[in-house]
């Protein structure tokens, strides 16, 4: 990830801003590349394998019947959700330290991809609840904390979307992103502790005992999820990176333009009394 700004010398002193540099080459038409195509194909293959194993090969659970198949997606999705949040917090910390734009892009990417997986987690968890307990929502520890985490992510992304000076926005988003993982940890711990007070041992077990083909299916679920996650991260990061590139200024060109303002006389309003121009008909 080439995220550093080139050092430029001008009269013996160097340029210290991170958002200047030579103008980006005309942008690529898409964010794909040979590597991502391989990654994408691998992800597709893994998903296909998951469908095969998940729906066909693995047996239904003793207690949960076919609903257990949702677990092969639900559990990996929850894990990848946390992975995305981890990226955001790490990137926020690195940005606050190094102030290079690439970290800012990575923070945004992590949060958006995490949100995708949060929704998947919530939907699969909810669908799982229906046949098992008859309700779409249960205040199970994982679902509840995922819901709060979704709210945290939505808030973070709302802050990111504000129409603000990019530098100011990056600072605020970085501080917020830095707090994301600590918030997740605290929320998870407290929700789990809370729900553990109310739930008996048999009523809710979102993680059934799995073995054999079911375990294989779960592993494939992790693999497929991981590949999809990586593919999404790479593409989203590239989009964010390109957006930032478009925002960079060529400082020398901007300076030249600014100085040219001094040479050209400023626009002066026409003195009162002069006709506005052609086409003004006499009263």
């Amino acid at each position, binding site marked *: 990830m080439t995220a550093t700004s080139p050092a430029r010398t*001008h*009269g013996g*002193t*160097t*340029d*210290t*801003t991170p*958002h*200047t540099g030579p103008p980006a080459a005309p942008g690529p038409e898409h964010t794909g590349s040979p590597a991502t195509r391989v990654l994408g194909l691998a992800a597709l293959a893994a998903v296909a394998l998951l469908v095969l194993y998940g729906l066909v090969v693995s047996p239904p659970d003793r207690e949960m019947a076919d609903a257990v198949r949702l677990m092969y997606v639900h559990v990996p999705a929850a894990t990848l959700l946390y992975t995305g949040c981890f990226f955001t917090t790490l990137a926020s910390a690195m940005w606050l330290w190094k102030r290079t734009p690439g970290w800012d892009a990575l923070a945004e990417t992590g949060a958006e991809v995490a949100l995708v997986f949060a929704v998947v987690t919530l939907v699969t968890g909810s669908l799982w609840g229906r046949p098992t307990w008859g309700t779409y929502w249960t205040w199970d520890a994982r679902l509840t904390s995922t819901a709060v985490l979704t709210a945290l992510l939505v808030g973070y992304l709302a802050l990111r979307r504000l129409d603000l*000076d*990019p*530098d100011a926005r990056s600072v605020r988003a970085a501080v917020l992103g830095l707090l994301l993982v600590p918030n997740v940890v605290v929320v998870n711990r407290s929700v789990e502790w809370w729900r553990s007070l109310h739930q008996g041992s048999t009523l809710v077990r979102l993680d059934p005992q799995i073995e054999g083909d079911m375990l294989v299916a779960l592993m494939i679920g992790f693999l497929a999820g991981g590949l999809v996650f990586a593919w999404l991260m790479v593409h989203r990061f590239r989009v964010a990176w390109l957006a930032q590139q478009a*925002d960079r*200024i060529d*400082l020398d060109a*901007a*300076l030249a333009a*600014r*100085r*040219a*303002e*001094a*040479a*050209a*006389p*400023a626009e002066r309003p026409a003195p009162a009394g002069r006709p506005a121009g052609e086409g003004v008909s006499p009263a």
Partner: protein
Amino acid sequence: MEPVVHLRDAVALLGRFPALAGIDLDVRRGEVVLLRGPNGAGKTTVLRVCAGLVPVVRGEAVVLGHDLRRDPRPVRRRVGLLGHATGLFDDLTVADNVAFWGRAYRAGRGDVEAALAAVGLAGRLRDVPVARLSAGQRRRTSLACLLARRPELWLLDEPHAGLDHDARDLLDDLVRRAVAQGATVLMSSHELDRAVALADRTVELAAGTAVGTPAAPAPSADGPAPVAEVGHVA
């Protein structure tokens, strides 16, 4: 002797916009320098750069011996900035405001009282909430906050705006007294007669540079006639 302000080809950005596009400026101790120029020329930015609020990304910038490119923060304690904004808390009284900012700037109570007296707000008006004051009185309160910290470098952004005749005289008097005590003053103003009388010399700004310097040679005949540097204090 070391100049109090030394800018050489300084570039400062406001967001993505180069507000200062390579400006040269030298201000010696005890000088009163007036910055002139059209709106948007960068006068306010020069003052904020000297206060250490806006970073300089290229060129040299040394104020009161501090290299602003390395770390602008140490210079902040030694300057006083009177900007367009009042920097006051509307719900608090005049006395509360000056006392708070005085202590925030580590001034003593004596300095706070002296400042209030110097701007004529030590009497009946001291216990009036700022929200109820006129604009001119608020300006005077902000000026008291500046006086309390006894800065070595005064940065005044259109200080005469909004002040009545007496208050303007008061301001000029305070500036002269501060200079007599060793302060240096850099100010911008559109009040030309009064400001030029107060200043030792004038620097014309245009589009982020100082006219007559290598970055911006004098404009063509169509443009506004530049005021050349008028007189130098030896």
